[in-house]
């Protein structure tokens, strides 16, 4: 019981101790800015909680990045420039859709390669089976040998 209580208290701890300076995550009044932010942030990874996008992460660093993106949109930066700003600092890992480049060729084209290999194997298998079950008439030589064997 005391253990459970201690655990519960421990869960409360962060809310008491952690007093980070929270970033104000205020949506902009301009719906165009918010729309662009929504679109962009769905393509970007939150680096602290790596399986969430910047759009749905509640972490503070995500709020920082959203603030930065809002400011850059307002400053008239293109999506491309904003993504370049972020990858310069955080690397390509921030992109949910990896860039097509030599190190990611296998990632992008590997599945198609596997598909082609699979198709080739399938065709070969089907052909082999078909060859095995189709009736082939005997050649004259084979007929002669068979008759020879069957002669009483």
């Amino acid at each position: 019981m005391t253990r459970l209580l201690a655990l519960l208290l421990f869960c409360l701890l962060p809310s008491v101790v952690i007093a980070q300076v929270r970033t104000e995550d205020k949506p902009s009044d301009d719906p165009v800015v918010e729309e662009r932010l929504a679109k962009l942030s769905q393509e970007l990874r939150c680096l602290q909680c790596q399986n969430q996008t910047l759009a749905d992460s509640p972490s503070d660093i995500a709020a920082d990045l959203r603030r930065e993106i809002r400011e850059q949109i307002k400053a008239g930066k293109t999506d491309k420039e904003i993504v370049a700003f972020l990858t310069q600092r955080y690397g390509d890992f921030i992109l949910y859709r990896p860039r097509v480049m030599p190190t990611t060729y296998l990632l992008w084209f590997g599945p198609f390669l596997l598909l082609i290999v699979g198709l080739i194997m399938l065709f070969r298998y089907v052909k082999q089976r078909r060859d095995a079950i189709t009736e082939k008439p005997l050649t004259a030589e084979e007929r002669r040998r068979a008759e020879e064997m069957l002669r009483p």
Partner: protein
Amino acid sequence: MRYLIPLVLFLVMLFFLAIGLTRDPNKLPSALLDKPAPTFRLPQLMNPEKTFSAEDMRGKVWMLNVWASWCFECRKEHPYLFQYSKSAGIPIVGLNYKDKREDALSWIGELGDPYVLSAVDLEGRVGMDYGVYGAPETYLIDKGGTIRYKHVGVVTPEVWTKEFLPLVQELNRQ
């Protein structure tokens, strides 16, 4: 032959999974490695009327340690920093990241100050320029102002002797 193909496939899979296990998904390669350390000018924690700029450290090998009073891991790292700066004779500059001033001051008051100074990054903007996504993070910067190493998480004595110390000594010779 019949058993060979599944066996080979299994071994290949095993190989890749084994590699996957040895890697920490939280450790990302820094995009800033071997790039110039971003410049900034920020007020100092102890003397708010004074500022600090990364340029001030030109000609020195130094470390930038991102810390905050709300960061649990930083508390673990803190005592080590005294040893590191002493043993290698390297100045450590703190980047007090998104921290309340009074919290930061009482943390230093309680645990001591291993830093030559701490710069105050209240809004986390300088942190963003350095690609910080969680504290503690530590950067090793050479005399020319280039980032030579970055470590995310606590710089344990093991990390220090294996990664930092040899590099610090090498950079100091240059």
